[in-house]
């Protein structure tokens, strides 16, 4: 009756990543109304700096009240459905993206394609680059949503590049080659590599060495390189963030054909904490891709009302700089709270410098070194500790026992409560072991 895509599980919502959310929704924590409810720690949202946006809007009423120097822009906005996007918005976005990267690279607004969220941007890149049945290589662990975003309607396959805890989950030449050969064994035509930098779920930035290996690899195989840089504004300490564009320029490859195979996905959802507004984009040096993706953006344009608000919000350089700095500080502080809290429970995290989560090592709590044991532990943490965290298996981690725990989507008090619960849970486990 329905299509194959509709009848299979391509949406990926049977994964624990989403199951945990559903449990949370049934019994959500509230410090007053439901203090024993489940605390949501599986949602990589940034709720730390919304007050800064609110304050700016309060102080700039004229800018955002659908008026422009006293005249109504409502009508023009209501009619504006140009898939090239609001020029004023793209201009400030290009400046902002450069500032996040310390102005080490510059961005051309004409190479930006706006779409309704990074979800739409990632899928669109697949449609533009790959045929049904082609493959993309992704370092593991990776964001669970990619299984839906990149594969579901496109028919693209994902082949993991296995990264291991023994070297801090860094991407190695060996792992890249192994993944490529695996794809060949499966008779899959590899079209590219997709990295998330800073990494979700690791919370780390990619090193110069890793980026170099990736570039060498994609040059040799003549494939695409997509860098999802959605967390680029959350890098709070060294090693500093190196964008893929910067890495390619450093290698002096911008005049080679690699240049037209490098693409960036970005969004304001994480850096600004506004996932509801659906502001995503693709940045590419490939003219044909930009042209096609622009037409495809028709399926999910950003509301002109939102483009207008964001263009005003981002218009001041001073505000942008202040926001970036303050946001980074708050992310750092909040992460430290979690690291210390977990440390007090005898739990360690992968050392990280970005993102809205910690990659936590709970291998010692596994009853066996298996994913089954990881699932059991996850369920226990969900039901006994009342914490929804994300098991490494849902991120395709090759080793059991790692979990992603988010820290920026709740108040400080709630984070404290969650750390107390974690401590209590852990001591109970050790008692019983």
């Amino acid at each position, binding site marked *: 009756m*329905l299509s194959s*895509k509709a009848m299979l599980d391509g949406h990926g919502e049977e994964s624990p990543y989403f199951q945990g959310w559903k449990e949370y929704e049934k019994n959500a924590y509230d410090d007053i109304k439901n203090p024993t409810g489940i605390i949501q720690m599986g949602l990589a949202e940034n709720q730390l700096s919304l007050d800064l946006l609110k304050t700016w809007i309060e102080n700039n009423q004229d800018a955002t009240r659908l008026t422009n120097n006293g005249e109504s822009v409502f009508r023009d906005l*209501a009619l504006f459905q*140009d898939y090239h996007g609001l*020029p004023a918005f793209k201009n400030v976005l290009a400046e902002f993206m450069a500032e996040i990267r310390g102005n080490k690279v510059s961005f051309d607004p004409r190479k930006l394609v706006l779409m*309704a969220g990074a979800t739409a941007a990632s899928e669109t890149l697949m449609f533009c680059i790959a045929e*049904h049945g082609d493959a993309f290589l992704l370092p593991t662990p990776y964001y669970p949503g990619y299984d839906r975003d990149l594969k579901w309607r496109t028919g693209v396959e994902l082949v993991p590049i296995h990264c291991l805890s023994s070297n801090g989950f860094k991407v190695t030449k060996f792992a890249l080659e192994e993944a490529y050969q695996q794809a060949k064994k499966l008779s899959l035509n590899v079209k590219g590599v997709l990295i998330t930098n800073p990494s979700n779920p690791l919370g780390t930035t990619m090193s110069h060495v890793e980026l170099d290996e990736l570039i060498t690899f994609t040059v040799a195989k003549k494939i*695409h390189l997509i860098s999802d840089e959605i967390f680029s504004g959350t890098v709070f300490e060294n090693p500093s963030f190196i964008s893929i564009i910067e890495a390619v320029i450093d290698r002096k490859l911008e005049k080679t054909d690699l240049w037209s195979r490098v693409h960036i996905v970005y969004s304001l959802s994480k850096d600004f904490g506004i996932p*509801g507004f659906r502001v995503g984009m693709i940045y590419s040096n490939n003219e044909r891709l930009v042209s096609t993706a622009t037409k495809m953006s028709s399926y999910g344009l950003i509301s002109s*009302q939102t483009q207008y608000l964001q263009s005003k919000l981002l218009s001041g350089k001073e505000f942008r700089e202040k926001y970036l700095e303050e946001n980074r500080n708050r992310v750092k502080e909040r992460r430290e709270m979690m690291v210390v809290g977990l440390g007090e429970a005898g739990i360690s995290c992968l050392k990280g410098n970005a993102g809205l989560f910690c990659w936590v090592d709970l291998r010692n709590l596994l009853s066996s070194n298996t994913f089954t044991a990881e699932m059991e532990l996850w369920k226990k943490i969900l039901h006994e500790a009342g914490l929804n965290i994300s098991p490494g298996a849902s991120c395709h981690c090759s080793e059991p026992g790692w979990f992603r725990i988010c820290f920026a989507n709740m108040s400080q008090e709630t984070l404290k409560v969650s750390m107390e619960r974690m401590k209590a849970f852990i001591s109970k486990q050790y008692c019983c072991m």
Partner: protein
Amino acid sequence: MGYMCNQQTQLLSKIATDNGHGENSPYFDGWKAYDSDPYHRIENPTGVIQMGLAENQLSFDIIEEWLLKNPKASICTVEGMSEFRDIAIYQDYHGLTEFRNAVAKFMGKVRGDRVVYDPNRIIMSGGATGAHELVTFCLADPDDAFLVPTPYYPGFDRDLRWRTGVQLLPVDCESSNDFKITRKALEAAYEKAQEEKIRVKGLLITNPSNPLGTVLDLETLKSIVTFVNEKNIHLISDEIYAGTVFGSPGFISVSEIIEEMECNRDLIHIVYSLSKDMGFPGFRVGIVYSYNDDVVNVGRKMSSFGLVSTQTQHLIASMLSDDEFVENFISKNSEKLSTRYKRFSSGLYKAGIRCLESNAGLFFWMDLRRLLKEPTADAEMALWRLIINKVKLNVSPGLSFHCSEPGWFRVCFANMDDETMEVALERIRSFVRKEVSAKRQRWQDNLKVRLSFGRLDDPHMRSPHSPMPQSPLVRART
């Protein structure tokens, strides 16, 4: 550049490099003439008047008045600011409850409260464009087909086919019976598909019709519902113009029909949007309403690829929950469309131009068959080029709507002010006068008129989503 371009092209998918986006249709070619020479009452009074854009610009004053009185509807005002945080972080694909409730209520009101819509069956999408693609992905596999009565909105070729791999098969409708959709035509199209071993998954209708501007009568609707039930195929009813009905006969939605007859409701789906009824194409409020639980379930998950901005959901929810405003808007909007329609149609009639009698939509379906040298597609194209180049009106040729008969043109009337409308009418009057008296001379001239519209590689190609390069928002760089 050529080499780089080829290189760049080879790296991409077939979808990225074929013409599936449909922007090579003459529908979009006409934009170029307008873009390069747009009419402006003072600055460019001899420019091309845009009549190829089905937009509703008649009722903004009603909305702006409401906005001034309701600052809370915006999360950026002092009054509405308290909601900012919750709205900004809400990315649930169910959408804000108040948004779904308000949209369901509005859809009911547009249908005179003859139907009640369930907010839990509402799925958001990136405009009707996104809605159509989403429904197609849910209902059909690559190479499956939908039947579509002609003439139909050219954007369907892209929306339903490009990335899905689904085919569109025409159901031919003819002027001899005012382009009604007959059972015979439906059967013929279905049989043809069977013979060609193409699996038909559904029938897509647009009601009220674009480009005809007519509503489907009760008998036709019942016949359509019977047909889809017998063939066990889906029915997608695009009701995007439901709120633009300005005269009798009244609009009957498929939702009303299924209350009155035997029907497998799992086959019934509606596509809707606020782009036409309210004039909000920029806000990207697309809706899929399905009577099929599985489609609602899966469609909702799929809507992640094109959710409506919560900032906009909040605005729309506030606006459409105001019953008084909604009733006032629906009735005033209809009046304004009616007034505009009557003025225009009487002007055309006096100029000796016939149009299909219509009572909805934002356009006329104009009959210029008698001005064709011969009843062929080439003759229609020649006439169209003349109208663009000499009369300076961007109208849309029937060919681009897959009309089976040459000589029909869609002309939009709601995307301009009264003065511009008078100028357009005067140009048409003058054109017809000259045409009737100097037909042969003009056809010879036509053959010499060559317009080179950029095709595949033209970076300036336009689509419905780049219709207003003259918008002040495009001129503003800061």
